[in-house]
């Protein structure tokens, strides 16, 4: 560094630590470029923006009361599917993880089969399979076919997260519980899982967010979730650009909220502080 001139050194410091103002300007420049690109592109297409027509699909006024529009109704279905699937997928994931870690060869084999079968086939095929093949055979209706497919799919990934979390707990914890005479069930319940859950909360959150996004796929079996409602409205109104922007924004808002909530929960649980 000694050979560098004073000027060069200032330059280096500038590029290492530019002021926040520079950051903001760069950010704005990128946003402006994107907006320009889209508007220029749509102009060339001759696209006629009609944002004013969008709000009625989010909220409608009926008899002076604010009522949910089709998009919000769809969002509620997305919430229902995602919420139930989230709980189910964590239950399935935990069970599969415990099977993988069990002493029983059969249980380990079963869990492995489940994992490989789900992880190596497309979710869309699984949805079709459950809805068109298992559905009529077992008498599962549309909504629960969607829930089942999503839960099984995300559960496979959740099981790997659970397994990694449990395995990451120091062996000494298991040994201490063993020598105190704790049963396997109590060792998991009181010692391993409470410690593992703190570690796996961040990847589990990602999995939850994936689940909400993947739930958009249930529209292919005509479950009227957010995405399906959007497709219906677009078919009627040709507001393609406006509605896809709106739908993306709604998913974004939901998932960002979820991330922030889990971050708060992590702070509360002391995830960073755990050894």
């Amino acid at each position, binding site marked *: 560094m000694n050979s560098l001139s004073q000027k060069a050194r200032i330059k280096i410091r500038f590029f290492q630590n530019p002021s926040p103002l520079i950051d903001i300007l760069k950010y704005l420049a990128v946003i402006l470029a994107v907006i320009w690109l889209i508007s220029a592109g749509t102009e060339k297409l001759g696209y006629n923006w009609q944002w004013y027509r969008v709000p009625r699909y989010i909220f409608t006024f009926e008899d002076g009361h604010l009522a949910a529009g089709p998009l919000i109704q769809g969002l509620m279905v997305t919430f229902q599917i995602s919420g139930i699937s989230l709980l189910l997928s964590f239950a399935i994931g935990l069970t599969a993880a415990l099977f993988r870690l069990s002493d029983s060869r059969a249980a380990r084999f079963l869990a492995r089969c489940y994992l490989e079968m789900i992880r190596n086939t497309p979710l869309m095929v699984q949805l079709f399979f459950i809805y068109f093949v298992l559905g009529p055979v077992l008498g599962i209706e549309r909504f629960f076919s969607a829930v089942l497919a999503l839960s099984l799919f995300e559960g496979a990934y959740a099981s790997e997260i659970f397994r990694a979390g449990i395995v990451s707990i120091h062996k000494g914890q298991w040994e*201490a519980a063993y020598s105190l*005479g704790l049963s396997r069930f109590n060792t998991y319940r009181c010692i391993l899982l409470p410690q593992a859950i703190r570690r796996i909360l961040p990847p589990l959150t990602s999995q939850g967010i994936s689940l909400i996004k993947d739930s958009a796929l249930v529209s292919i079996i005509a479950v009227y979730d957010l995405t399906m409602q959007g497709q219906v409205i677009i078919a009627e109104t040709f507001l393609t650009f406006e509605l896809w922007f709106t739908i993306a924004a709604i998913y974004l808002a939901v998932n960002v909220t979820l991330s922030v909530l889990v971050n708060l929960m992590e702070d509360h649980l002391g995830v960073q502080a755990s050894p």
Partner: protein
Amino acid sequence: MQDKQFGAKSSFGFITVDRISKTFPNGVVALSEFTTHILRGEVVVVIGPSGSGKSTFLRCLNGLEDIDSGSIVVDGIVLDDNKKNRLEIRKEVGMVFQQFNLFPHMTVRDNINLAQRLVRKKTRAEATEMTMDLLRKVNITEKADAFPAQLSGGQQQRVAIARALAMMPKVMLFDEATSALDPEMIGEVLEVMKTLAGEGMTMVVVTHEMGFAREVSDRVIFMEAGKIVESGTAEHFFNHPREERTRAFLSQILT
């Protein structure tokens, strides 16, 4: 050694270890035809160079490691694949680890209460009463509501001893209980172990603390390569060792 709270020493074997062998999957022989009898109330110190199988021997005594052949009988219960027997032995044999292994997400009180409540089926009040007694015994009552990470190494190890004692074990195993401690904290842990020995607790201690072996043990076992090289009273062992290998080991560690 007047106050024999845990029963007088008797002549019959309390723990019978008969020709146990263990080879690890990587081919290392940890124990080979190892045989010993431990009496009720006896304090046995196991020493030896690292890799001699002393920790493995200790861990076999409560089933943490499985043996390949031979038999282990603790207080009349055979340690085999029978889950019920194994559980009985796990309840009767307390263990203290080098790395303490306290449960980091629980307070000191909950660490000690846990097994009493889940395994001994005590109520919270009963468990807490015993826990506070034990914390008094290991001289650390003021930390009952602290988490393990807030304690020094010596304090954590004393809590770990209290946690093992809460199960009212008939035998206590100490696996290099002071090896991970700063020098100034070793004394406080050894003090608790001495008190226990004085009360007549049956103890098997793997340690590098020769002072403890000399002062407290009834018998010293020196082992190497999974076998007993020499075994005898501390007086015999430290002052008149028979074997050449023992003399060489002692001259290395005592200088």
